[in-house]
């Protein structure tokens, strides 16, 4: 249960939602978060849960929802006009919760990370396959990264638009 719901503000979260609601959430295959590949319906809930400020800007083909958390981490969710999150990006003094941002894509990142050689540089990670392009880099107190699913990019939108 926690693994799906852990947030920067888990305490508040469990106060807001009843235990049974959490269990229900856990039982769903996809948590109702606006993670990569998910839908945008819960962006308002994300904002409340993360105690973040929300700024949304639209370009016609997609909307960028920018959440700024109280710890200074900026998370951008790129949502297609069909309401699907095709990309996420982050920047700030701390790493965001990757399970939360990557959703069902998290496992790809997790296994690629585990497969790395022990002596590789830890402050820099690139992953590119058919369904996930991910870049994560930074040093202490300054991290940034982005991830998108190339197959979900709306027409006319490029990977580099996710930033």
């Amino acid at each position, binding site marked *: 249960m926690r693994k799906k719901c852990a947030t920067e503000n888990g305490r508040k979260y469990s106060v807001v939602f009843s235990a049974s609601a959490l269990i229900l959430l856990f039982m769903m295959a996809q948590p109702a978060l606006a993670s990569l590949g998910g839908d945008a319906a819960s962006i308002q809930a994300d904002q409340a849960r993360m105690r973040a400020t929300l700024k949304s800007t639209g370009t016609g083909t997609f909307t960028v929802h920018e959440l700024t958390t109280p710890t200074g981490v900026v998370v951008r969710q790129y949502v297609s006009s069909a309401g699907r999150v095709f990309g996420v990006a982050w920047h700030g003094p701390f790493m965001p919760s990757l399970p939360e941002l990557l959703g069902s894509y998290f496992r790809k*990142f997790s296994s690629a990370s585990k497969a790395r050689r022990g*002596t*590789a540089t830890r402050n*820099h*990670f690139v992953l590119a396959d058919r369904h996930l392009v991910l870049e994560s880099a930074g040093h*202490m107190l300054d991290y940034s990264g982005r991830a998108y699913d190339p197959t979900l990019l709306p027409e006319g939108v490029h990977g580099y638009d996710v*930033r």
Partner: protein
Amino acid sequence: MMCARLTGKGGQLLTVILSSLLLFSCVGGSNTTPTGTPISITLLPSANTVSLGQSVVISANVYDQSNQGATWALNPVNFGTLSDVSSSSVTYTAPTDFTLPTKITITATSVSNPNVIASVQISVSPIIVGLSPFAPQTINAGEQIGVFPNVQNDTMNTGVTWSISPASGAGSLIDASPGGVTYVAPAIVTDPVMATITASSIANPSARSSVEITALSSGAGPNVAAVRVDGGPVTGSGRQNAAFTSITICNPGSTIVCQTVDGILVDTGSYGLRILQSQIPLLKLPTLTDGSGNALENCVFNPDGTFLWGPVAQADVNIGAQIAPAALVQIITSSLDQPPDGCSQGSFINLNTPELLGANGILGIGPEPTDCIVAGKNLCDGSTQAVPPKVYFSCPKNGCLNSDQAVFVPRDKQVTNPVTLFGADNNGTLLQLAPVSTPQVKTFGTLTFGIETEVNNTLGGATIYTTNRAGEFTTIFNQQLLTSSFIDSGASEYLFPGLMPTCTVNTNLYCPPGLRNLVATNKGSTEGVGDVAFSVDNADSMFASYPGYTVFSDLAGHNGTYNTCINGEGACSFVWGLPFFYGRAVYTQIDGQRPPFGSPGGPWWAY
């Protein structure tokens, strides 16, 4: 023994009276005892502490109508010997070849009634050899340095003998006496040479202590640590382009209970010392706890999904002759227990072995004072936001729950850049490595503490590059304005958003068809502009052509997508990794520390 009544007098007299009557009433047994006055034994040792080889006589005053006296036993059995055994006394002689303080117990048992026993505990102190200096030192070619012993419990005053390793080629020892020795560096030094000077107790040669002294061609001193780029501590799996040094960690306040740990990564990209628990087994460092006994744990989450987890502890950190007393450090725990999900993010790996970390520890000496302060704001103490970041956790004494939440922590409990705690030479660092043009097996350099505080850390002709207060400046490269650029000795490559082909094998790195000579311009926020020439070669072919090499000056990798930095968001960072330090002296001025007279406010870089 639970029924024994003990009385002491002046700490010297330990009387144990164990009457059969008491025994009967206590144990509830059915042993019969001689009638009349109960049998008792009183033990009187001539001393309660002895050093190695010393003897102590234990007399037994046995009140026993049949006058049969006592028999004697020693525990641990073979730790020293009992001699001159009589029914009323025994002589205990401590062993000579031990190094750990030990408590022994001598037990007298009544012959008339074996249920009547008395025992006495005696502390047996080993000879302990300490040295001054004890942390790794540097010295210039041809110079000398005195090394002095500090020997404890050497009751016969036999002193120490001196040795040097390697026996030849690394300088020599002169004027050796029990009171000290002088190390003379080789007259000519090209590559640095390290000598290990050892003092061994004559009374107990297994009691010994060593200090590492590295002779350099120039630039050495009490504020200088030797640095090696040699792959680090993991044999057969060397880390490329990583600078390592040795430090000595001591229990706070001690100059004896210390461990010297090599393979410490020198990292201008992080703040604070983090050390593997497995590398300091002899130390008992005090960990931070709150009023309820909860342990304060620290988490560093890396961009690749790995993390560092473990308690915050106090240690005296010695580098060269510099000391950071009671520095707060992270002990990367050896425990396999999962940390809270808030740190581990559910499934990832704590880098808690040399193999995983590629080092025995990380010396974070970047431009910030703690792992929570950036641009003068403390992000972990509650002063700037309502929610604590996932950096510090409070865990119950018996271990963390995976639901444990991050907590706010004041500055004086945060893992601290040890340079800021030095008594002098504490405003920054100077890291420089030898020039490199082709791949090499290893190379050398120095880490010098302080900027413009000694003759060996003057800025000279270096240009200062001021920053946005977060330690970042602008790099202009290939028509991109990269506004969050940084100098990170913990990164093995130049990392930038570029257009070069990705490698097939090392998919994080660039693989141009051949050597590319490039130029970028660095620009400070208020002052400092200069071009940097650098080269990028094909990482896959270099690694294939130079197996086992650890020094590659032309290594570079991806850092986001080309030309996507807009208004500070996107791929806005050129990371000047370790190759930048080859053939360059790079100064890091730490935020909040006093910059050199006449220089701009920090933090800044200079090279």
